[in-house]
């Protein structure tokens, strides 16, 4: 599968208001199976809101979300999960008093029906959770909780995966390791959207980035080009995240 396929997700002219504040203001983009798209921008530019709208936490005030050709804007989250959309959380919220294994069991049982994928033990092995599989989630380290969150999302057999600041808090070796995992997932045909502050990490894994500011897209293309565009530089100036 190649990035030139028909996009699996299209968002058109998304608008999301909180009171008088426009968190999303006419956002439009698309992503295809097998592609890794980066969403970058300063704090408050609307990246996480975009993920929250696509994953069903908020209904958009205007615009549409097309997944696999069907409009899914405002659909209940669990239905989106059944269609194949999933996500991780900036601050992971695993089911703290359940064991790691039980966390995954919920996702596998209630995730996308009829899909097949790697077995639970493979997933645990692959994301370095096998040793703690029978421990309750609140015993896990922060990084382990992040991995559990990711594995939980993967266990539902998604076709589109939204990663919200997965890399934050990981050390350089872990970063390299997780970058490889994400790339492998995309190779397997998964469409992935990454929201991230670490530009090096974005550069390492993405095919394409969208730079957002004030709820709008101000640039689309590769990161290497983006960092030379004056408008993008200006948005990040004073921001602490210029790579």
């Amino acid at each position: 599968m190649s990035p030139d396929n028909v996009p699996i997700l299209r968002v058109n002219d998304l608008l999301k208001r909180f009171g008088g504040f426009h968190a999303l203001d006419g956002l439009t983009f698309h992503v295809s199976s097998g592609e890794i798209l980066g969403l970058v921008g300063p704090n408050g530019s609307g990246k996480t809101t975009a993920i929250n709208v696509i994953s069903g936490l908020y209904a958009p005030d205007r615009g549409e979300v097309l997944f696999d050709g069907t409009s899914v804007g405002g659909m209940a989250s669990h239905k989106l999960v059944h269609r194949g959309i999933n996500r991780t959380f900036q601050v992971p919220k695993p089911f703290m008093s359940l064991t790691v294994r039980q966390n995954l069991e919920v996702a596998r049982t209630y995730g996308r029906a009829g899909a097949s994928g790697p077995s639970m033990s493979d997933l645990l092995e692959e994301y370095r959770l096998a040793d703690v599989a029978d421990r309750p989630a609140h015993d896990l380290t922060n990084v382990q909780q992040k991995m559990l969150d990711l594995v939980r999302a993967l266990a539902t057999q998604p076709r589109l995966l939204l990663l919200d600041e997965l890399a934050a808090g990981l050390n350089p070796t872990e970063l390299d390791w997780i970058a490889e995992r994400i790339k492998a997932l995309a190779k397997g045909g998964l469409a992935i959207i990454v929201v991230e502050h670490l530009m090096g990490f974005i550069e390492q894994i993405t095919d394409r980035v969208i730079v957002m500011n004030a709820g709008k897209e101000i640039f689309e293309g590769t990161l290497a080009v983006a960092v030379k565009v004056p408008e993008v530089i200006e948005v990040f100036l004073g921001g602490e995240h210029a790579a």
Partner: protein
Amino acid sequence: MPDTLRHYLFIAVPLLVVLAVLPSVYNNHLLLFNFVIFFILAQGVNIIYGFTGYLPFGYVGFFGAGAYGFALMVMHLNSPAPVAVLAGGLVAVVLGLILTPLLRLAGAYFSIANLAAALAVLHLIANPALESITKGPYGVALNGTFNPTWAYAGAVLILALTLGIVVYLKNSSFGLALQAVREDSFSASMSGVNVVKMRTIAWLASALVAGLAGGVFAWYVSVFYPDNVFSADFSIFAIVFALFGGVATICGPLIGVIILYGIYNLIGFTTPQYFQLIYGLLIMGLVLFLPAGLVSLATRRGWNVP
């Protein structure tokens, strides 16, 4: 042996057998009956609080609704008692359905709204304007259905149903999903769990058992006032018993009832003045030192408590 079967064989069945045999060796049947009622109510609280995290401070609303469902069937339709008990359960489920919007509320707001709802139902039923239907504040006296032996048997049967539900929740992916909802509802929905549907089912199941218990209670006591069957003591006892033993387990609420209701019956009558004090201190100590209940003494040591 699968866990489900083990839990039935080693927890539910022995308890039910003991309860079935006890009346022939111990004469205060009403005390036994009350134990059964509190087993049911504590497990009902377990279903909704232990598995989904909603603390039902007005749980007695379902119990009272069930009792009045029973009374209305007997008074107005002359229905046989077992049918009236089922009707009591049904009334509670209908009340539960009416109250489902409360599940949108989080934490303490839910508990307080639930308490308010129970009090509202009480004041509705006890209003003299409805005297021709509910007998208002004047209380009901049911003649013709009184039969303690069968009412006790009915209560044990309802306990069996309740234990069946709890064992199922403890061992099924449905129960696991409910606990996931309790831990974090958005994470649960991102695991594909239909949060609204799941917690509504748990809510109604919990309402059902309380309603059935109320119906069978009305059958046993036959003469009662609204204050009797809507007494906040039922909610509070059931919650404290369940928490004391430990929720989200099968044994916890049962242990809680046996110990605390046992103590209540032993010392509650001999040192009355100080009972409330001791009880209050016990509750405070529990929250401060054993917030996960007695069973956590075992689970802390790594033992698995069903």
